[in-house]
């Protein structure tokens, strides 16, 4: 019990601590491919520290929604982090939630952030909220479908259950359905983490931004909370990607050695995903907002092919 | 007793001729009608206690006649009560002079007399004479306003009804011809005798006789496509008379068809005449539908609704099962009460707004705090919405249709009724709701008529959820009039 709790806390901590680093790695990689030097990989940590020292400015028109949003956002990401299996299949709180809950925790965070975007009354925030909710709406089914394919295969929506069923399935699991679902989910992950070609995480040009628009009014400590939460969300999505589709290497017991091995493998895997993401980002241009549905629709159809192949080809 | 019943209206009619004071006339009519109701109820009590009332060879009253008799008497009383205020209003605004009031009462009581005569006579020939008499008695009442439209209506009424009913005379004649060799001259048109000897009559002639009688009396009932006089007459007559026409005259005419039907089905089996009646019923409901949907005259709307309801009763009689007949006569009671009070309401409304056009009547709920809600209730009731009585009887009729496995035709009727409901609710909501036009003053015209409307709506509401034991008993007895001969 205590041990499980300790492992749970460890997994959470790992996520929280590693998340800014991953952001740094992605930025660095992007810089590399853009033949820039780029900031250091630890830059996000410095940024956070810097934000913490700054004064928070809150709009006079904003309500309490604006103030609580960073807390709720970060808290729900932390809660999600407590549930997702990271280095070990079993997490302390795995009975508390399943993949549906995780996605809806993201929704909770998004809901408040979108409200906060509207709260200050500035047009930019509203634009960000509006676009965010639209993109989220169409990415949601595309996000869910591949996960559901996996869940149906495993017979449960519990993440630990899914992970275990993939591991126990041996080589047989690497089917068309499996791969298609992975590809589909990967495409959605681009949208969910707010990256090119859907969104540009580095822009502050009002007309192109989605996610940044909502956060435009935030400053100081509030901004710190939000940025760390956003990178946690990104890491969590990558975690889902790797641990659901390629869980091999994850610790199935709570031995110290297995945990250390699991942690290393996990870091390796998400870093790889991060690098791939950075490559994708540098090789595409940002699309128009109204082209985004096409992309996500494509992802949905790939997921659908995965689902259909699962039942039609039984593979 | 039956003689008193016949003598009373005749007496009042003659008395009215001698009086010219409006108030006195009203008093005579109310007192007389009250006495008529008493007599009718006494007769009904005797009949429903188990023995039919017979006087000589010409008068027989069984459960069926007694039921309609009571309806005629009761609605007659209500009309008498309502007429007082209605006529007073019309005289006040100069629609007609006071001297004509006595003619109104004269013809009205002649009308009541002829209806009673039709109901009590044992002889189908005399019944025919009486039914034709109702046309003649009401023709001048329909044209009472002496305006272009009312005269036109009266003219169409008398011509079409006379032509129609003359075919019924031919039907009666054929029946007579078929029967005379069996029964001899005296009993040849006596419906009791005819039912007994029906099996010995020539079926071919009976068929012909029934067809003529159905078309003839059907004209009077307002079965489509012989209904054409009905909307004109009902809309142009003074509202109390419309109430009487719609509420009871149609029932009396229907009664005549039923008498023929009973004789004929005895001989030919129930199929032939039932199916014909059923077809006419369905056609009537269908024909009423489009006119109700786009109607713009409140009284015509009610008139078409009468066609519809006569169609429903016809359908129920066509179904012919005990349950259906129960529903048919319950429906007859419900329709008579609801429709007559609706005509009173329409009378109030048209007098208050000086128009019968639905589109020009607005905000009734506000301008007429009693009549408005009453229109709402009455309209919903007549359209077949629960918890009002007509829903109950329609439900019974429909279920008996389904219980016979006639899914298609019963579903069709149900759909037609539903669409008719649409038309009604549209019209009612147009009139009841909204902001009243400024020219119309707020407030009811007379307390008396309103109380009457409310009283007559009481059974409409009550019968929807609760049918008193005695009504149930009466209806059972009426249905045995049908079933009794068959089984």
């Amino acid at each position, binding site marked *: 019990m205590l041990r499980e709790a300790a492992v749970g806390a460890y997994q959470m901590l790992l996520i929280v601590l590693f998340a800014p680093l991953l952001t740094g790695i992605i930025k660095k990689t992007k810089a590399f491919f853009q033949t820039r030097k780029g900031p250091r990989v630890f830059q996000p940590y410095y940024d956070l520290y810097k934000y913490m020292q700054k004064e928070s400015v809150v709009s006079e028109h904003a309500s309490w929604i604006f103030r609580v949003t960073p807390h709720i956002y970060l808290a729900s990401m932390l809660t999600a982090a407590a549930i997702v299996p990271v280095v070990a299949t079993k997490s302390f709180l795995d009975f508390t939630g*399943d993949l549906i809950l995780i996605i809806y925790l993201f929704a909770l965070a998004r809901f408040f952030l979108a409200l906060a975007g509207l709260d200050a009354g500035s047009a930019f925030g509203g634009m960000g909220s509006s676009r965010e909710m639209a993109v989220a709406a169409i990415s949601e089914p595309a996000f869910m479908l591949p996960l559901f394919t996996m869940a149906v295969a495993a017979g449960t929506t519990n993440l630990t259950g899914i992970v275990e069923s993939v591991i126990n399935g041996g080589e047989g699991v690497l089917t068309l359905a499996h791969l298609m679902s992975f590809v589909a989910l990967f495409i959605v992950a681009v949208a969910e983490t707010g990256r090119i070609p859907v969104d540009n995480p580095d822009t502050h040009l009002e007309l192109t931004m989605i996610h940044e628009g909502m956060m435009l009014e935030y400053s100081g400590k509030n901004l710190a909370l939000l940025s760390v939460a956003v990178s946690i969300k990104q890491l969590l999505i990558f975690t889902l990607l790797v641990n659901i589709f390629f869980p091999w290497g994850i610790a199935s017991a709570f031995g110290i050695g297995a945990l250390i091995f699991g942690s290393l493998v996990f870091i390796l895997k998400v870093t790889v995903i991060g690098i791939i993401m950075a490559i994708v980002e540098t090789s595409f241009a940002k699309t128009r907002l109204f082209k985004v549905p096409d992309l996500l629709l494509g992802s949905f159809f790939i997921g659908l092919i995965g689902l259909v192949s699962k039942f039609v080809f039984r593979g | 007793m039956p003689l008193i019943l016949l003598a009373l209206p005749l007496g009042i009619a003659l008395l009215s001729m001698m009086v010219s004071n409006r108030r006195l006339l009203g008093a005579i009519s109310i007192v007389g009608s009250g006495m008529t109701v008493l007599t009718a109820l006494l007769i009904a009590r005797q009949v429903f206690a188990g023995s039919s009332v017979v006087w000589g060879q010409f008068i027989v009253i069984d459960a069926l006649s007694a039921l309609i008799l009571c309806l005629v008497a009761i609605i007659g009383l209500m009309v008498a009560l309502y007429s007082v205020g209605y006529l007073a209003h019309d005289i006040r605004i100069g629609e007609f002079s006071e001297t004509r009031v006595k003619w109104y009462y004269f013809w009205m009581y002649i009308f009541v007399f002829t209806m009673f005569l039709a109901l009590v006579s044992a002889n189908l020939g005399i019944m025919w004479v009486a039914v034709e008499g109702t046309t003649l008695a009401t023709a001048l009442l329909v044209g009472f306003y002496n305006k272009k439209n009312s005269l036109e209506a009266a003219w169409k009424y008398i011509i079409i009804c006379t032509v129609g009913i003359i075919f019924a005379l031919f039907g009666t004649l054929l029946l007579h011809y078929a029967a005379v060799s069996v029964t001899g001259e005296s009993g040849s048109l006596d419906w009791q005798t005819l039912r007994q000897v029906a099996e010995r009559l020539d079926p071919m002639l009976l068929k012909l006789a029934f067809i003529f009688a159905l*078309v003839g009396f059907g004209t009077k009932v307002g079965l489509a496509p012989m209904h054409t006089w009905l909307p004109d007459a009902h809309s142009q007559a003074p509202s109390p008379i419309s109430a009487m026409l719609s509420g009871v005259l149609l029932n009396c005419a229907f009664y005549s068809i039923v008498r023929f039907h009973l004789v004929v089905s005895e001989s030919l089996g129930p199929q032939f005449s039932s199916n014909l009646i059923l077809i006419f019923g369905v056609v009537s409901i269908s024909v009423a539908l489009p006119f109700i949907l786009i109607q713009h005259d409140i009284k015509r709307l009610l008139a078409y609704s009468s066609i519809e309801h006569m169609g429903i009763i016809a359908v129920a009689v066509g179904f012919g099962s005990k349950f259906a007949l129960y529903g048919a006569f319950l429906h007859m009671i419900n329709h008579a009460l609801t429709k007559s009070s609706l005509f009173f309401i329409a009378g109030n409304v048209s007098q208050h707004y000086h128009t019968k056009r639905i589109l020009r009547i607005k905000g009734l709920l506000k301008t007429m705090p009693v009549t408005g809600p009453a229109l709402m209730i009455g309209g919903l009731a007549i359209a077949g919405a629960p918890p009002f009585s007509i829903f109950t009887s329609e439900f019974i009729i429909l279920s008996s249709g389904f219980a016979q496995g006639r899914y298609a035709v019963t579903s069709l009727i149900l759909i037609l009724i539903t669409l008719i409901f649409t038309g009604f609710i549209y019209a009612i909501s147009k009139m009841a709701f909204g902001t009243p036009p400024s020219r119309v003053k707020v407030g009811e015209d007379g307390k008396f008529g309103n109380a009457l409307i409310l009283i007559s709506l009481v059974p409409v509401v009550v019968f929807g959820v609760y049918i008193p034991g005695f009504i149930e008993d009466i209806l059972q007895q009426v249905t045995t009039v049908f079933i009794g001969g068959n089984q």
Partner: protein
Amino acid sequence: MPVSAESLFVFMLGSLLLGAILSYVLQKKPHISIFMGYSFASMASLSGLILGPTLLLSERSLEIILPWSIFGTALQFTVDPLTAFFITVISVLGLSASVFSYGYARAYIGKQNVGLLGLFYNLFIFSMLALVSSSNTFMFLLFWEIMSLVSYFLVVFEHQDYRVRRAGFIYIVMTHIGTAFLIIAFLILYNETGSYLLFSQYAGVSQSLSPTMKSVIFILVTLGFGTKAGIVPLHIWLPKAHPAAPSNVSALMSGIMLKTAIYGFIRITFGVLGTGPLWWGGLILIIGAVSALLGVMYALMEHDIKGLLAYHSVENIGIILLGIGSALIFVSDGSHHLAMIGLTAGLFHTFNHAVFKGLLFLGAGAVHYATHTRDIEEMGGLLKRMPWTGFFFLIGSISISAIPPFNGFASEWMTFQSLLGLGTANLGAGINIMGPILAAALALTGALAAACFVKAFGIMFLALPRSAKAEKAKEVPRTMLVGMGLLASLCFLFGVVPSLVIDLLSPVTASLLSVVTIQMGGYDWLAITSIIEQGTVLGATSISPVIMLAVLMLCALLVYLIFTRFGKFRKTRIDETWNCGVAQTSNMEYTATSFSKPIRIMFRAIFRPTRKIEKEYVLKPYFTSRIKYKGGIKPFFEDTLYRPQFRFFLKLANKFTVLQSGSIQLYLSYIFVTLVVLLIFAR
């Protein structure tokens, strides 16, 4: 003092009738009338709230036989578990709405007849309670129609407005046509099963029905109840009628009146028809998915707050039907244990929808009360002016968007589980594929609902007021807040402790699916666990909203501590919104129309957006003085499905009037022709 359940039931119905009469009689003294009317309604709801759960937990049924009969059919009320559950649902919302109405109805004093409102309000609750308790089809139809009529009167309560009358007309027509289907279905049932009117007796004999007849009845029932429930495309009355009614009534209409249709549907399909072919469930699933998706999409385009909520009713009915549909599929397969999840999901969502939609409608009513407008474009900044209303509305918004830890999530989660259960079922690839796709559709629905409520809440309550009306808004009276608060706390309670409701549901599913023991894992205070059948774990999925909430709170606390303890500045500075250096005005805010624009464009195939730009020039074509932009969407179903039919019918009816063209010769020839035809054919 021990009170028998029977007398409680009679008291419940009786006090509603009394309340109806009293509030009408006392209409000359509006304050007393309001007090009397809603006190009796509250009392009745309170007794219903005691009665329902008591009967459910003690697993007892109740029969009350009226002392008279109509054509030989005994009139009786029966309260079985399903009924008891619906009594509970009705009472919960009835209580809150009644408390709310104390304050709300005051707004009508001097403008409308509050006595009449009280009369119909009480009768409305009465008819719904009586409807779900009716034990035979005649009474069912009777109360069904009374309910329709009373609600019609409530819809047209403010009948001075032309649009209200039109909405009422469409409503009553649609619902009456729906009823016609029901009557046909019931009467076929009546004949085919050998002339019983009692639901309980149907159940026994319905197995002898031919499969075709069963399916015919099923279709009729689906159409009939579907019209009332507002399934697409029979929903068109709903977004018109709900906004037209007073808000306390809209809450009841949307929250519970639609649910009576769900009640009837479950009563007939599960209670009477029983096992049916697979396509029944498939049909219901597709109807559910389409209703859910289109409902929420149209809601997004709606800027009348009550119209928006009304479209969300369509959506939520769809979600309920997704649960019920999957249950139907499992029933046809014989897997009653799996069916139980679907049914529980459907019924749970029924309850939840009643709670949060009731809350939202009451909130909308409160906002309307304070601002005298329903157009959300004219609101804004209300959270500061009406903090409690705003808070409750926020809770409602989160709940309806199915976001944890509120109740909407709990039931939608169960619906997800039942849909994914289809994916694992052994019913062929078609069903297997359908399950996850429908689940994805549900996910889309949820996300769109969230978008919609971000729009609704954000535009209504946040930022600067967009009009003088909103500027002058004040918090509503306390009774209204209590009414909303009650529902808001239930939203939270059922979200965190779903077993409160699910425990009540187990006798219901047990009675309908004849699954004797409840094996749905431990429905304890912690978790919803999926089922265990015959010892094998079919799916060990669980969530525990309580623990999740605890973790969430803990994390939030932690974050808060970090936030306050670290850093140089302890306080935040209040300053202007950054707006490229220009002072912020309400004109700069994002509007609801612009908020929903991306979605309008993305789903243009469905919305068919229209835009109209009018320009006025100072000097053509270079200097414009004014640009007027008008955007909208095409009402697809009205344009294609209803209006042409309606026109056609009217045209046809007009054509028929030549029959009565006034010529007496023509009339005579009808008689002539009839006679000749009869002589020829009937001889």
